[in-house]
C-alpha cells in the first residue's frame, strides 16, 4: 500500500475509534453514575441497556435541527465542527502501543496540548453565536477557565520532559520501562520525584477538560447547559461527543506520562506485544472511571475560587516544582534521557 493510503486508513481508524469510544464512554458514564447513585442506569434497550447509547445516537441524528432566530448563522453552524475537530486531532500523537500509533511526532506532547487548547476558541464561538445569555456566560466561563489553566497544565508536565529529554510520547513510555526491586514498575507515578507533578497535572487536566468539580462552563444548576444550550440534534451530539473524547484523551495523556502507557513490566515483551493496545485502553478506561467517580460525588467549585487556584496557586506551584526538580536532577544526576 502506498503511504497515502496507510495515512488515510490511520485517520479513519482514529475517527472510528473516537466515535466508538464516545458511545462506549457514554454507556459507561450512565452505568457508573447509576451504580454510584444506587440505581441501575439504562436497563431496557438491549441486555443491561447496552443499545441505549446507539439508539440515542440514532435519535440525535434524526432529530430536527433547530436554528434559533437571532443566532449568528455562520458561527453557530461551524462551532460544533470546530469543537469536534481538535478533539479528533488530539488522537494523532497518542501511542497505543510500540507499533500502534497514528503518527510518531517528536513534539507529540506539545502538539496534543496545543490541539486541546483550540477547543476553547470553539466554545467561545458557540457561546457567542447562540444569542443566548446563558450560552454567552457559559462560553465566557469556558474561555476564562481554559486560558487560566493552559499555562499550569503545560508547566506541570515539564519535569517529565526534563527527565526524559523528549516530547515524543512513545519515547516517554519507553523511558518508563523496567522495575524497581524486580516488583514495582518504573512508571513515573512510582517515582517520588513526580508525585507533586502528578497532583498538579491531575488538577489542571480536570479543569482543562471541564470535568466535575470544575465543570463550570456548563454548570447545569446555574447556566442550564452553558454554551450548548441552544444546540440541538447532531450539533449537540458533536459537542457532547467531543467532551467525552477529551476526557479520554486526558486520561490517555495521564497514562502515557505517569502509568507507563502500554507497558506492563511483569509480562515479557513477546507476550505483551499483541495485547499492548488492550493494556493501554484498559489503563485509560480506569482513568476515565476515576473521573466519572469524581463527577458522581463532588460538588462544584466557584468560578472565583477556580481562577485564584489557577493564577495564584497552580502557576507558582508548577514553576517552583520545575525549579526544585531541575536542581535535584542536576545534583543527583537523576535524568534518564532517551537516546
Amino acid at each position, binding site marked *: 500500500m502506498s503511504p497515502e493510503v496507510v495515512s488515510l486508513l490511520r485517520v479513519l481508524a482514529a475517527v472510528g475509534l473516537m466515535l466508538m469510544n464516545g458511545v462506549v464512554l457514554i454507556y459507561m458514564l450512565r452505568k457508573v*453514575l447509576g451504580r*454510584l*447513585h*444506587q*440505581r441501575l442506569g439504562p436497563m431496557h434497550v438491549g441486555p443491561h441497556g447496552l443499545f441505549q447509547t446507539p439508539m440515542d445516537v440514532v435519535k440525535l441524528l434524526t432529530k430536527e435541527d433547530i436554528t434559533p*432566530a*437571532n443566532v449568528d448563522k455562520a458561527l453557530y453552524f461551524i462551532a460544533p465542527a470546530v469543537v469536534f475537530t481538535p478533539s479528533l486531532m488530539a488522537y494523532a500523537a497518542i501511542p497505543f502501543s510500540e507499533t500502534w500509533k497514528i503518527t510518531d511526532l517528536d513534539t507529540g506532547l506539545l502538539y496534543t496540548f496545543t490541539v486541546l487548547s483550540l477547543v476553547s476558541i470553539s466554545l467561545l464561538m458557540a457561546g457567542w453565536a447562540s444569542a443566548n*445569555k*446563558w450560552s*454567552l*456566560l457559559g462560553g465566557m*466561563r469556558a474561555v476564562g477557565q481554559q486560558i487560566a489553566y493552559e499555562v499550569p497544565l503545560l508547566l506541570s508536565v515539564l519535569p517529565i520532559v526534563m527527565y526524559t529529554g523528549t516530547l515524543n510520547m512513545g519515547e516517554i513510555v519507553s523511558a518508563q520501562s523496567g522495575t524497581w526491586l524486580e516488583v514495582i514498575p518504573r512508571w513515573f507515578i512510582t517515582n517520588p520525584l513526580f508525585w507533586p507533578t502528578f497532583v498538579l497535572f491531575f488538577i489542571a487536566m480536570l479543569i482543562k477538560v471541564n470535568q*466535575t*468539580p470544575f*465543570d*463550570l462552563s456548563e*454548570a*447545569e*444548576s*446555574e447556566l*442550564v447547559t452553558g454554551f450548548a444550550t441552544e444546540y440541538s440534534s447532531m450539533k449537540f451530539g458533536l459537542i457532547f461527543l467531543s467532551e467525552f473524547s477529551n476526557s479520554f484523551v486526558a486520561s490517555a495523556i495521564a497514562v502515557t506520562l505517569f502509568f507507563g502507557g502500554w507497558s506492563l513490566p511483569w509480562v515479557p515483551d513477546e507476550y505483551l506485544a499483541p495485547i499492548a493496545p488492550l493494556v493501554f485502553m484498559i489503563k485509560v478506561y480506569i482513568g476515565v472511571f476515576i473521573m466519572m467517580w469524581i*463527577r*458522581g*460525588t*463532588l*460538588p*462544584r*467549585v*466557584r*468560578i*472565583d*475560587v477556580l481562577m485564584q487556584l489557577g493564577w495564584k496557586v497552580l502557576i507558582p506551584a508548577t514553576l517552583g516544582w520545575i525549579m526544585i526538580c531541575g536542581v535535584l536532577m542536576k545534583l543527583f544526576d537523576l535524568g534518564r534521557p532517551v537516546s
Partner: protein
Amino acid sequence: MIDPHFTVSEDGLMTPEGTFSPGSPPAGIRRVPKGVDSLGTEHLIVNMGPQHPSTHGVLRLIVELDGEEVVAVEVSIGFLHRGIEKLAESRRFDQLATLMDRGDYVSAIHGEQAAALAVEKLMGIEIPTKAAWIRTLTAELNRLASHIVWFGTFGLDTGAMGQFLYAMRDREALLDILEEISGQRMMFNYVRPGGVLADLPAGIDRKILAFCDTFEVYLEEHHALLGCNEIFQSRVKNIGIVTKETALAFGLTGANLRATGIAFDVRRDRPYDAYPALEFDIPVGTVGDAWDRYMVRMEEMRQSVRMVRQLVAGMPEGEHMAKVPKVLRPPAGEVYASVESSRGETGIHLFTDGGATPYRYRYRGASFFTCQLFEEVLPGHLFADACMLLGSFDIMLGEVDR
C-alpha cells in the same frame, strides 16, 4: 441583528411586541437599574426562570449581572397561582385538606394540620389524644421527607448530583410509610377537623422504627459526604448572611430564622397537638449564612427522628377521630392557627359567617416571606452563589403562589 418581532424593552428584556407589554411596575416593586460605568460597559440582565433548573419550581428572577456578580434581583412570582384562598371559600371545612395538600406539596401534612387546627379552635373541638399523636407522628415523618428533598436539591445546586439520588432513596422509604398510614404518597388528605382519617395500620410501628435505625446512619453518611466536603464548605460558609434584624423585618420563620440565631419554633412557643409531651431541642445558628441554614436543617432531621421514636413508643390507645357533625358549621368569628411546617410557620387566618364554608380563608405560606428576601440577600454575591442560595432557603413555590 434583532428580529423585527422583538423589541428590547427599557429594562433590557426582550418582549414579544403586541402580546405583552411590561408597562410601569406596580408601586413597591423595585425597578432593576441599568448599570453603566465609566468604561461604557453594560450590565447583563438575565431572566432566570420560570423554567430554570435551580429555581425549584416556577419562580422567575430577573437578575442583573456585572460579569459574574449579581448587582440586583427582582423576584417575579405567581406562575403557580391556583387561587387556593378563593377556592377555599366554596369548600366545606372538611374539604380544606385537599386544597392545603396542593399548597406546600412537599410537606402536605403540615398544611392540613394548620387548616384542621383553625377549624377545631373555632368550634372548640377537643380531639382525642391518639389523634393528636398520630398527627404529630405523620407531621414529623413528613418533615423528614421534606427536609431530605431540600438536602438533595441543595446538593444539586452546589453541583453534587449524588446527594439528590441518595435523598430520593430515603424519601422513598418515608413515602412508603406515609402511604401505608394515609393511603397516598404526596397529597395525603389525612388530617381532618376532629382528628385523622384513619387509625394507624397494624405493624406500622416496627416499620417506622426500622426506618429510623437506617435513616440515622444514612443521615450521618449524607453529612459526611456533603457537609464535610471541603469544596462544599467553601461554597456555603459566610455566604448569604441574613442578620437577625433582616430576618425579623422580612417575617422569616422556620429554619431560616433559627439559622440567624433566633430560637423561635411554633412547636415549642405555641404548642399544638402532641408537641407539649415531646422532648426535643431547637437548633439555632450563629452567623445566619448558608452553612448555618444547612446545619440547622440537618440537626432538625436528627431531632425529628428523636421525636418519631418518642411518638412511636408512647402512642396512646383510643379513638382517632372526635365525634364531629357530618357538616361542620363553625360559629361566625375569626381565628388564626399556625403550625411549624418544614419551611416555617404555616398559618391559617380563618373568617367565618356561620355558614358551611369559610367566609375568607387566608393562607400564610412561609416561603412567600422567604422569597421577598432574595432581592435583599442575593445582590453582591456571585451568580453561582445566587443559585446555591436559592437552594439554601428551601422555598416551595406551591406555597408562595398558593
